[in-house]
C-alpha cells in the first residue's frame, strides 16, 4: 500500500493554501498508510541562505542550538528549519556533527523544507503545522511499511540532494545492487531502505548533469520492481510509474494546479476538481512539470 499526495501550483494565488490542501489530501490517504507520514514543502527562497531541515530528540532545545550556531530557526515539534548563510554552510554542517550529534540533518535546499514522523497522517501534519505552510509545490506520503521497519528512518519523503525529494509506493527488488554501485560513485545513504536508493539514483543522475525528466527516464532502465514515484526539485515536479503499473495513480490538472493522488478521493476537495482534466498516468512514461524559479 502507501498513499501519495502531490500538488504543484500554477496559480500563485493558491500558494497560501498549499499546506492546507496537502494536509487534507494526506488525511484521506490514512487508509493507505496509517503508520507514518511525511511531506516536503517548497516555500519562499531566502536569497543568500540555505534552509536545512533538522530532526532532534523530543524536547530538544533547538533555540539554544540555533544561538550557538548563530542562525535563525523555525521550530516544528521535533523538527526545525535553520537558515544558514551560504558562505557558512560547511562550517555549520561541521558544527552540527561535532556539537549536536543527536540532531539529524533531514534535508536541505534553497526552498525545500522536509518533515516526517511516525504516526497517523493527521497527527503528523498537526505536529509540524502543515496547514499553515505556504509554497509553490508539496509532496507528501502516508506509509504502510513493507520493505523495512516502522521507524522515522523508513518514512518518506527521502531527500538525497539539495531541494530534491522522492516518495514511493511500491517496492524495489534490485536496490542493494544499485546502492553498492552508487556508493562507489560517491553517493551516501543513511538507511537500508529501497526508496532511498531510488532517490539517490535520481540525485546521482542530476549531479551528473541530467535533467529531471532524463533522470526519470534512466530510472526506468535501471530500477527493478514496483513503483509509482513522485519527485520534486526546486522548480519541478515529476511522476513515474513502472511498466507493469500495479501501484495506483490518478492525476488532475486545471489551469491552477497539477495534483497527484494514489486515488481520486484524495483530490475530491480540491478547488475546481469537477472540471479538472482527470487522467491516469501511463506506465513507463515520464511526466514532468516545471515553473520559473
Amino acid at each position, binding site marked *: 500500500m502507501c498513499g501519495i499526495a502531490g500538488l504543484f501550483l500554477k496559480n500563485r494565488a493558491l500558494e497560501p493554501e498549499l499546506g492546507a490542501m496537502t494536509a487534507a489530501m494526506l488525511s484521506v490517504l490514512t487508509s493507505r498508510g496509517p503508520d507514518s507520514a511525511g511531506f516536503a514543502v517548497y516555500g519562499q527562497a531566502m536569497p543568500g541562505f540555505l534552509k536545512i531541515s533538522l530532526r532532534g530528540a523530543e524536547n530538544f532545545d533547538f533555540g539554544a542550538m540555533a544561538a550557538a550556531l548563530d542562525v535563525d530557526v523555525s521550530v516544528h515539534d521535533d523538527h526545525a528549519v535553520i537558515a544558514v548563510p551560504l558562505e557558512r554552510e560547511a562550517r555549520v554542517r561541521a558544527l552540527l556533527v561535532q556539537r549536536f550529534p543527536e540532531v539529524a540533518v533531514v534535508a536541505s535546499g534553497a526552498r525545500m523544507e522536509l518533515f516526517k514522523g511516525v504516526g497517523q497522517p493527521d497527527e503528523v501534519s498537526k505536529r509540524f503545522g502543515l496547514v499553515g505552510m505556504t509554497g509553490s509545490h508539496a509532496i507528501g506520503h502516508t506509509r504502510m511499511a513493507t520493505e523495512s521497519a516502522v521507524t522515522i528512518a523508513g518514512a518518506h519523503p527521502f531527500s538525497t540532494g539539495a531541494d530534491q525529494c522522492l516518495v514511493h509506493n511500491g517496492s524495489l527488488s534490485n536496490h542493494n545492487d544499485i546502492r553498492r554501485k552508487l556508493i562507489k560513485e560517491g553517493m551516501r545513504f543513511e538507511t537500508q531502505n529501497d526508496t532511498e536508493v531510488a532517490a539517490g539514483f535520481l540525485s546521482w543522475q542530476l549531479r551528473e548533469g541530467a535533467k529531471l525528466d532524463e533522470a526519470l527516464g534512466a530510472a526506468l532502465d535501471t530500477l527493478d520492481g514496483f513503483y509509482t514515484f513522485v519527485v520534486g526539485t526546486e522548480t519541478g515536479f515529476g511522476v513515474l510509474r513502472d*511498466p*507493469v*503499473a500495479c501501484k*495506483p495513480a*490518478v492525476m488532475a490538472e486545471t489551469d491552477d494546479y497539477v495534483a497527484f493522488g494514489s*486515488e*481520486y*478521493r*484524495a*483530490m*475530491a476537495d480540491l478547488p475546481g476538481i*469537477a472540471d479538472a482534466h*482527470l*487522467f*491516469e498516468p*501511463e*506506465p513507463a512514461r515520464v511526466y514532468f512539470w516545471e515553473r520559473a524559479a
Partner: protein
Amino acid sequence: MRVAAAPVAVNEPVVFDLAAAGLRALNAALAGLTATTNQTVWRVKNPRGEHAIAVGVTAPVCIFVDGPVGYYCAGMNDGADITIMGNAGPGVAENMMSGFVRVTGDASQAAGASAHGGLLVIEGNASARCGISMKGVDIVVKGFVGHMSAFMAQSGNLVVLGDAGEALGDSLYEARIFVRGRVASLGADCEERPMTDEAAAILAGLLRRADARAEVGDFKVYGSARKLYNFHVDHAGHY
C-alpha cells in the same frame, strides 16, 4: 437518511447522499431491494471516489452514481443497470454476473475482471488488464485499453474501438477480442483470427447495444491459438 421510510412513487428517483449517510447504508439499502421493488431508480450523490459503491446489487434497478468512484464500483452486479457519471477506479464491475454497467469517463485497471456476464461499457479509456480473466462478460471500450488486457480471458467478448496496449490476450482461452485501432503487441498464444459471420454478428450486436458508432468491417478479431492448452514435449526446454 430514511431511504426505506420515505414514500416514493414508481420510477421517482431515490436520491441517496453518500457523504451524509455513508457507504454501508447505501449498500444495505440496495441489498434489501427485491425483484419487484417500486424503488427502481436510484441516484447516488457525492460518491467522492469512495470504494465499493453499489456492489452486489441483485435487483433489476437503475442506479446513477453522480461522479468519480474508487475501487470495485458495481462489483458482483447481478441484474442492475448502473451508470457511473465520471471516472472509475480499479476493478469496476469486477465479477459482474449479469446486468449493465456504464462508465461515462475512463476506467482504471482491471475493469470487468473475472466477470461472468452482463455488459460493461466504458465511454473513455480503460487502463491495464481490462477484462483480465473474464468469464463470459461483454466489454465495450470506446477509447484505448492498457497492457495485458484480456489476460487469461476465458469467455465473452472484449471490443476496443481505440488502440490496445502490449501483450493483448496473453494466455487467452476462448474469449474473443475485437480491436479497431492498433495493437501494440499480442500476448502469448493470442493470434488474429478470421472474422466469421458469427463473430461479425456478435460484434454488430455489441456495438449497437453500447451505442458505439463504428463499422464492423474496421475491426480485427483475435482469439486463442490453443497452443498452450496442452503440454507439448517439444517445448519442454522452454520451461
